[in-house]
């Protein structure tokens, strides 16, 4: 049971991370910076609860806001470049953040022990949940409430004009400009929203693992962050969730019995999935079929 709850938590947090990349990918930008924002959210939220004794919700919001503001600041210069150059720029930023935490030392005494980030040793003893009597089930519920709130918000955004504007920029930047869309503002906003969402995910992650270190926020995590929405499809937000379940639930956990062969099959299955479903697990066709099923039940057009 605890294993399943743990998996539920992991899937929740990784979906939040994937959604943070989803927003940015809609504008056609490939970002490797999401692990950096995730790390900023994680460290700041954990410091606020552990060192300053804050409640977790405001701590996470502050952590996420800092990540969002950093995304905004980084976004202005970074989004002047496109494609592979943006990949390089955002990778560099992600590494910068990771190395910052690698070198960051700020410990205070708490009773007998010292707590706080300790450079390469990481940040141990993030004991907010056990100290406040949250069970694993409570934490899983907390994560999923936040995830569902984020998914609903993005679902609404997708269907509002803002979503169409992001997609328009992703499709054709020149055409988007020519209909009056401010490219820089749109991209930087998407980047900042993505940074904020990643920061939320990081804030939860720090608390349920109770121990974070710089290596958690590496390029590997950033790669997962963009792999989820790309594999899941950019048609709507549920694709990212399905991709996380597919990768973390089926490929990582489900294939554990295969031992070392798992990693090999893991890569192969992702390649197969991308070939069979080039526009993602949840593409326009799936959305249309599901939409039609719903509209007949309600007896009216849903879309």
């Amino acid at each position, binding site marked *: 049971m605890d294993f399943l709850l743990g998996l539920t938590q992991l899937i929740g947090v990784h979906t939040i991370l994937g959604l943070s990349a989803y927003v940015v990918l809609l504008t056609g930008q490939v970002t490797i910076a999401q692990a950096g924002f995730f790390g900023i959210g994680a460290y700041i939220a954990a410091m606020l609860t552990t060192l300053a004794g804050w409640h977790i919700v405001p701590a996470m919001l502050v952590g996420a806001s800092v990540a969002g503001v950093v995304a905004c600041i980084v976004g202005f210069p970074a989004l002047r470049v496109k494609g592979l150059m943006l990949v390089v720029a955002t990778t560099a930023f992600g590494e910068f953040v990771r190395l910052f935490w690698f070198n960051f030392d700020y410990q205070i005494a708490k009773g007998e022990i010292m707590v706080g980030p300790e450079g390469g040793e990481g940040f141990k003893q993030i004991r907010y949940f056990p100290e406040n009597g949250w069970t694993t089930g409570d934490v899983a519920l907390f994560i999923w409430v936040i995830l569902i709130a984020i998914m609903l918000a993005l679902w609404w955004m997708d269907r509002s*004009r803002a979503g*169409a*504007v992001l997609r328009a920029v992703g*499709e054709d930047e020149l055409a988007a*400009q*020519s*209909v*009056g*869309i401010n490219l820089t503002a749109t991209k930087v906003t998407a980047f900042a929203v993505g940074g904020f969402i990643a920061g939320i995910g990081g804030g939860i992650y720090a608390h349920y693992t109770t121990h974070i270190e710089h290596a958690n926020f590496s390029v590997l995590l950033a790669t997962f962050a963009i792999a989820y929405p790309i594999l899941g499809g950019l048609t709507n937000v549920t694709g990212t969730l399905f991709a996380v379940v597919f990768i973390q639930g089926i490929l990582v956990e489900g294939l554990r019995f295969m031992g070392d062969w798992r990693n090999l099959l893991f890569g192969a299955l992702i390649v197969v999935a991308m070939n069979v479903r080039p526009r993602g697990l949840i593409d326009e066709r799936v959305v249309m079929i599901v939409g039609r099923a719903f509209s007949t039940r309600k007896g009216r057009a849903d879309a």
Partner: protein
Amino acid sequence: MLELKVLSKHFGGVRAVDDLSLAVEKGQIFGLIGPNGSGKSTTVNLICGVFPVTSGRVLLDGKDITRAQPHQTLAAGIARTFQNIRLFGQLTVWQNLWVAQNGLEDRQRENFLRRWMSGNRRARESVEELLEFSGLADKRDALARNLAFGEQRRLELARALSAKPKLLLLDEPAAGMNLEEVGALDDRLRKIQDRGVTILLVEHVMDLVMGVTDRIAVLNFGKKIAEGTPAEIQDDPAVQEAYLGGAGGRRAAAAG
């Protein structure tokens, strides 16, 4: 209303537009013609702010918009279409028009939320009206990339009209159309003119240009070689030279 003052654009050593001066009057349909590679599309891109100009100025109603970016020139009142259609292919017809509803908020209202709501309502009304105008009402939920060619052209034109522009720049709107479609385009341009929109028409299809325009400028090698009414242009020896004298043939492969 639109004035180009000794406008130039050099790409390396190529003078794509060379000391071009033009004045388009309000309410006109102004034709801009010339052989391939004569700088017509470059001129459109300079007016819209897609390329930075090398020298010269662009004025709209006396206001200098030379250095404005494309979204700023749109806000100033200039909308455009593209020579090779550039729709948002994965978006529906309705969404293509919806994202283009910019600058329509009711600025009279103080309350931000009210202003936003009324802006949204006006945007929806405007989209409906444009769907009707372009005859695409029954295709509203189709993806733009799945439309027939003529429909894509109509959608792009409707999208350009979305921001209620003062000036519309059309870059070869009749390219690839058959005679019937060109006739329908002719009607549509006159309807747009009746709405008080000034049009700068870059075109190759002579029937359309000669029939619909009030005034024409002819470019060759980035320079203006003639300007006048359609009748004057047809009789101009310099124009005949540019079109028939081989200049067009030699540079036919170059992009417009």
